[in-house]
């Protein structure tokens, strides 16, 4: 079986600018993979290619077993995605949001019904199923947003800065969800600006100027760079890139 993510020499150019420069890596099933890099390093471009939203200029990538270039629609159908903060509709109720996303992912009415019941029960939201999202406490919103992102049981979920601006307790509760999902075998691909969260990942890659400069477990990276924390590793690697003004 193919790994959930397999990337070979993936490249994306915009005119003469090379945003993603020949990157290769693979992510295993159930792995929490941290995708780090400075602003402008090429992370967003790479993620957009992996999600089938942007065609590569060169190279290959398979996500959930599908070619991101030739089978972009299949890729989109077989991944989960949660962007910075929430992708939920504030003016819809909990139940309406679940149904809306269930419809988008093409769940049958029967499957959707079963899934809704199960999700409300797991999240302990049964009594709040008719509450508008905007009236839910932050922690619950996040749990629901994450659950909705994996509503269709994807093998892999992309989380793009899911915890930005969130209070420290809710941030950790969110990571509990990530751990639980990974434990069930869901592959998690996550970006963050919190370097302590980089330590929670099984492996971490660091992008600098379109390339992957380092890729390993947090412990191995700290050892290799003689650093006490991932923050130090990140600064050592990304500092030169910060100097070359764009």
């Amino acid at each position, binding site marked *: 079986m193919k790994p959930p993510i397999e990337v070979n020499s993936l490249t994306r150019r915009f005119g003469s600018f090379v945003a993603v420069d020949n990157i290769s890596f693979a992510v295993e099933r159930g792995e929490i993979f941290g995708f780090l*890099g*400075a*602003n*402008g*390093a090429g992370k967003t471009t790479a993620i957009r290619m992996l999600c089938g939203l942007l065609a590569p200029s060169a190279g290959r990538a398979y996500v959930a077993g599908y070619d991101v270039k030739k089978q972009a629609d299949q890729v989109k159908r077989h991944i989960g995605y949660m962007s*910075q903060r929430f992708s939920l509709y504030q003016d819809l109720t909990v139940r309406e949001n679940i149904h809306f996303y269930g419809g988008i992912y093409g769940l049958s009415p029967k499957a959707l019904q079963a899934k809704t019941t199960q999700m409300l029960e797991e999240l302990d939201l049964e009594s709040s199923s008719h509450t508008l999202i905007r009236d839910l406490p*932050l922690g619950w919103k996040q749990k629901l947003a994450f659950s909705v992102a994996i509503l269709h049981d994807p093998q892999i979920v992309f989380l793009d*800065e899911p915890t*930005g*601006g*969130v*209070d*420290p*307790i*809710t941030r*950790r509760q969110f*990571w*509990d969800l990530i*751990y639980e999902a*990974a*434990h069930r075998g869901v592959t998690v691909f996550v970006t963050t*600006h*919190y*370097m*302590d969260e980089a*330590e*929670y990942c099984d492996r971490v890659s660091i992008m600098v100027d379109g390339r992957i400069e380092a890729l390993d477990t*947090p*412990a191995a990276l700290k050892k290799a760079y003689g650093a006490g*924390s*991932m*923050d130090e590793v*990140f*600064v050592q690697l*990304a*500092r030169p*890139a*910060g100097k070359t*003004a*764009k």
Partner: protein
Amino acid sequence: MNPAIQISGLSKHYGELQALQSVDLSIAPGELFGLIGPDGAGKTSLIRILATLLLPTEGTASVLGKDVVKHYRFIRRNMGYMPGRFSLYYDLSVEENISLFATIFGTTLQENYELVREIYSQIEPFKDRKAGALSGGMKQKLALSCALIHRPKVLFLDEPTTGVDAVSRREFWGMLQNLKAHGITILVSTPYMDEAGLCDRIALIQKGNILAVDSPGGIVSQFERPLYAVRAADKYHLLKSLRSYPYAHSAFSFGDSIHYTDQRGAFAPESLLTYLEGQGVKDAQIEPIQAGVEDCFMALMQRHETSH
């Protein structure tokens, strides 16, 4: 010395939502003061009231000795303000943005070049580029230059580092230290707890309430329980096991370890290690550590929530 910023019983309500609840705060001239809290804590409401852009529901606030409601004209001339989303004109060039802000305040870039030089010189090579085409870090530098162009006595920065990578964040704080050396009073808000240590004093804010005000050292010295770092290879298993320990008071992930407090306060770590071994965590290590600002924030948050 009179405070540069004085806030008394300040509240702001939006309909039913209480964004600020009777906030008191005093900031001395020349202080680098951090407002630390997550989204929705009330940081932006507080800064917008001080920047004379929002009226308080109750209470009073003064900046440079002048009331924010009555003397807004004076304050606007003497403050610099960088809102969360950059206040730049994206279809104007870097140089045009600077000139525009300078002209509005009746000054020129040349007149105040010395104050902004360190920051502006980094973007000057791109002065003909449209502001919208700059990278995030460069936009931040341009926005800060624009906020400083009239030599303000007080500077309000609303989440200048949100969404900015760890390297650019460090650089930005370096710039603030240098501005402080010019005697400018700086009030800066941030959701990143690790930036708290770079301020002279900080206020921890959550749901419209100030949880604590002190120097970063003062805040962490108030942490009430002995704190331990526990490590093991399987962090998820360790976390679950720690939480199931009958004497556990709190267990939170912190980078490569889990920060643990015990209901008994100080205790013999061997008893916990024996318990963890019984749970299948054979490689656990435990050591006493100093609490950080984030530990304190979480402890205060929990105490505040249980007391309400």
